[in-house]
């Protein structure tokens, strides 16, 4: 595979487009590029910033890989992310009350519950699809909207802080937070967890029987059916696993970064997992690469917004052009599109 050469070409084209964008918005090009680069890579703070942003992206991206590989077009990562965190916060609230320090493995418990929460939320859409034929695309869009409202309700109702003033949960004690490597940076154990998950998922998809069946169902559910594999069951499990991964992302964001939930907790990570996964060709390891690309891009452009008059909005423009440049060039370079003549099937 000459993937590396391709990647290099993409990177070059991408930089050109970025420069043009900056010029279009009359930002000093050299300084801006330096700010973006510094924001993503210059020192340990920058690297940590990139890693922190990569973490939820990678986990939700992996979640999307699982579902899309099974042929279920889950676009409900955002809702699953949020509901996972809500579940985790419920346990967190209990642990705070029960003097958390006394409970070993409290963070692990919260993470597991987050995964379960995300899995349940995704399972709803999966069940609707498998048993009632409701397209996942629509049910997950609707469930995303509902999840956001559920969060609002949770943090101003049952999970609200003790003082009952602000719609947010109580801050978790340090003993429950994921370990950080350096108190000066935000990067936390969740990043390692996400990378481990990418490896685990690679092994699962390509090395195990269950992973093979999942891919087979995604490719042709009818073939699976006549070979005694129940596509519905596989897709339902895939959906739950996918949701678990997104829920875990929510948990990692909660335990690793913020320590409390409020209405501003959702930052679109669940949604952005989709382009990340697709950019990674629905392959876990390449998805890790895509997540890092996005993470660094976010970290860098944020830095640009921080120290220039360029606001968040220009950041969006830069991000959009970067993504388009990347995929555009990869489209140009695509050595050989998949042969259509034989991939389309005979109507029966």
């Amino acid at each position, binding site marked *: 595979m000459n993937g590396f050469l391709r990647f290099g070409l993409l990177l070059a084209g991408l930089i050109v487009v970025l420069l043009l964008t900056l010029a279009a918005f009359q930002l000093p090009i050299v300084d801006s590029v330096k700010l973006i680069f510094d924001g993503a890579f210059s020192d340990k703070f920058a690297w940590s910033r990139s890693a922190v942003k990569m973490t939820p992206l990678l986990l939700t991206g992996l979640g999307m890989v699982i579902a899309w590989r099974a042929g279920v077009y889950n676009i409900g990562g955002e809702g699953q992310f949020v509901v996972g965190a809500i579940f985790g916060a419920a346990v967190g609230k209990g642990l705070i009350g029960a003097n958390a320090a006394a409970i070993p493995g409290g963070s692990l418990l919260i993470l597991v519950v987050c995964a379960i929460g995300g899995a349940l939320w995704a399972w709803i859409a999966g069940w609707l699809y498998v048993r009632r034929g409701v397209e996942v695309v629509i049910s997950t869009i609707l469930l995303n909207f509902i999840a956001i409202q559920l969060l609002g309700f949770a943090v101003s109702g049952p999970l609200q802080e003790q003082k009952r003033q602000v719609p947010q949960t109580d801050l978790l004690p340090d003993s429950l937070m994921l370990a950080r490597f350096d*108190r*000066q940076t935000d990067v936390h154990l969740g990043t390692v967890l996400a990378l481990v998950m990418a490896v685990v998922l690679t092994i699962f998809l390509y090395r195990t029987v269950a992973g093979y069946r999942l891919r087979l169902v995604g490719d042709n559910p009818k073939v699976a059916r006549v070979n005694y594999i129940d596509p519905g069951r596989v897709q339902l499990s895939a959906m739950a696993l996918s949701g678990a991964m997104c829920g875990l992302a929510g948990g990692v964001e909660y335990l690793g970064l913020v320590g409390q939930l409020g209405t501003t907790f959702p930052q679109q990570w669940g949604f952005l997992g989709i382009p990340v996964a697709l950019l990674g060709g629905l392959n876990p390891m390449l998805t890790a690469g895509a997540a890092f690309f996005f993470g660094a891009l976010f970290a860098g452009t944020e830095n640009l917004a921080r*120290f220039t008059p360029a606001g968040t909005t220009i950041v969006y423009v830069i991000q959009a052009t970067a993504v388009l440049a990347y995929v555009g060039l990869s489209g140009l370079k695509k050595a050989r599109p998949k042969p259509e003549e034989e991939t389309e099937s005979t109507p029966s």
Partner: protein
Amino acid sequence: GSTGDTAKTETKEGAPAASGEFKVALLTLGSVNDSGWNSMAYEALNGIKSDMSATVDNQEVPPTNAKDALRSYAQKGYNLVFGHGYEYNEPMAAVGPDFKDTIFISSSGGKTASNVGAFRFYLEQSFYLAGMLAAKQSKTGVIGSVAVLDIPSINSTLKAYEAGAKAANPNIKVLPPVYFGVENDIAKAKQLTESIIAQKADFVIHQANAAAKGVFDACAEKGVSALGSNLNQNSEKGVVASAFIVAKPAFLQLAKSVKDKTFKGEIVLVGMDSGTIDFEINPEYKSKVPADLIKLLDETKENIRTGKLVVPKDEF
């Protein structure tokens, strides 16, 4: 391994230079072009820039990123970082001990340290007056309010609005606040305003920021009175009075105290006494307000200013 936020302080390179340059940053949750809460702070920041010839910067920062943003500014030698919202108080308390040379101030919030403080705008005072005006002037006997989110900073003002209304007219019916839930959704704000006008409300106050246009529009179309908030919005169509914040003097004073190194980490309550909070009737509408009501409002304002009347406010 993990390190708690209370561990020993590390000194960072890039601490404020002795060059005398004064650097101020502002963090907001939303766009500073929201014609409301954030744009008010942005104006004040520009006031600091021009009056104190400071270097200023501003950024939209969600709370999840707050610590990173605070550290970056501190590392770049910023002397003062404003976080315009209670959401920034916790991150400031967490980061503050590491950067003793930078002062962190959030709008609202309860945690303080030697270099961490909070500002509390007593906007309730002017909402109280708005409630009085509405209650007295309402022909239907029903008034209402439209808000973007169910959050304490908003709810506290709406409670004061209700308290003022009840104080002026015990028989007034104050509809419970209604929320449209999505920032910047003008159409929803408008639709929601129409639905409370359908409940007979003829005075509507808002906490809708950029979506306020929808509230005013609905009021103007249905011929009811709108009340502006956060900024003086008396020039908008259909607005009869505004309850607002004049942020610049307060921000400036604070910035000066930081520059003079007289700042103490504390929670500062700024209200009508310092002229930061104000209430003003639209001059065009003034003719429709009976003289005794104007007198009552003026007296109440004076009582608030001198502390004789303490308007209720929530803690958050």
